[in-house]
């Protein structure tokens, strides 16, 4: 059930990014995907990415999350240990027909992006009252 709702799309992730400078690494950020009652919730670690550098798009049923992280070097500084870089994050998820791409909401806070993809009305689990005579 869950796997049908939202599947990470490796093929779309691997698609070349025309606008990316060739020396910037494209990295798949860590993602949590949860299938809840009324929506699929996608949480992505995007440290160093601000709203302006974030792109969320849906095309041909594939939700793509991309963001460019920034590294802020202090004034007059020389980096003496480097374990993370100004990378481009990119992740793609194939949305099932049961999800409504139109109602997607997204919130970015403290380097974490939370996306909610609502389920279509007819596919939501519903309680049906049974009338007993």
């Amino acid at each position, binding site marked *: 059930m*869950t796997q049908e709702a939202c*599947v990470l799309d490796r093929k779309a992730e691997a698609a070349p990014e025309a606008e990316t400078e060739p020396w910037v690494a494209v990295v798949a950020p860590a993602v949590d995907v949860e299938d809840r009652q009324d929506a699929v919730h996608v949480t992505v670690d*995007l*440290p160093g990415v601000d709203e302006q550098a974030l792109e969320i798009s849906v095309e041909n049923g594939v939700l793509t999350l991309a963001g460019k992280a920034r590294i802020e070097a*202090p004034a*007059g500084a020389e*980096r003496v*240990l480097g374990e993370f870089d100004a990378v481009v994050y990119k992740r793609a998820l194939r949305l099932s027909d049961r999800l409504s791409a139109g109602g997607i909401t997204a919130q970015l806070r403290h380097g974490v992006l939370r996306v909610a993809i609502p389920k279509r009305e007819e596919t939501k689990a519903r309680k049906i009252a049974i009338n007993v005579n």
Partner: protein
Amino acid sequence: MIMTGNRGTWSLLDDLVSLQGEFNRIFGDGRAGAGVGRALYPPLNVWQTPDGLVVDAELPGVDPAAVEIAVADGQLAISGQRSTGAEPAEGVACRERPEGSFSRTLQLPFRVNQDQVKASYKQGVLRVELPRAEEDKPKKILVQAA
């Protein structure tokens, strides 16, 4: 002109790379998939500035108030707990984001002015600024001609 410090020719890079006190206890719950292949958490960038060191730690989604930063015995320790807020209920299709306690320790190549250590948190990146103690800074010594 002679430059003197508390060590004659300390190499900051060597000090930082041979970090004996380095350890990592994240992913303590042994959950599959979380952070596989990542030996150290959080990843750090260390910058040397004219005034001291700046340490950046990549810690997205962490409550900055819950991160402990300690400078003692010539070491900087950054530790805390990372909770992803994920519900352990069914319906989990994919869980990759690391969760659990973390700790990293850096050997500092100089004495730090403890009162002036500053920390800030922006877009999931924690920055700790460690100014070098005034008495520890290299001093220029002028040679006087006889």
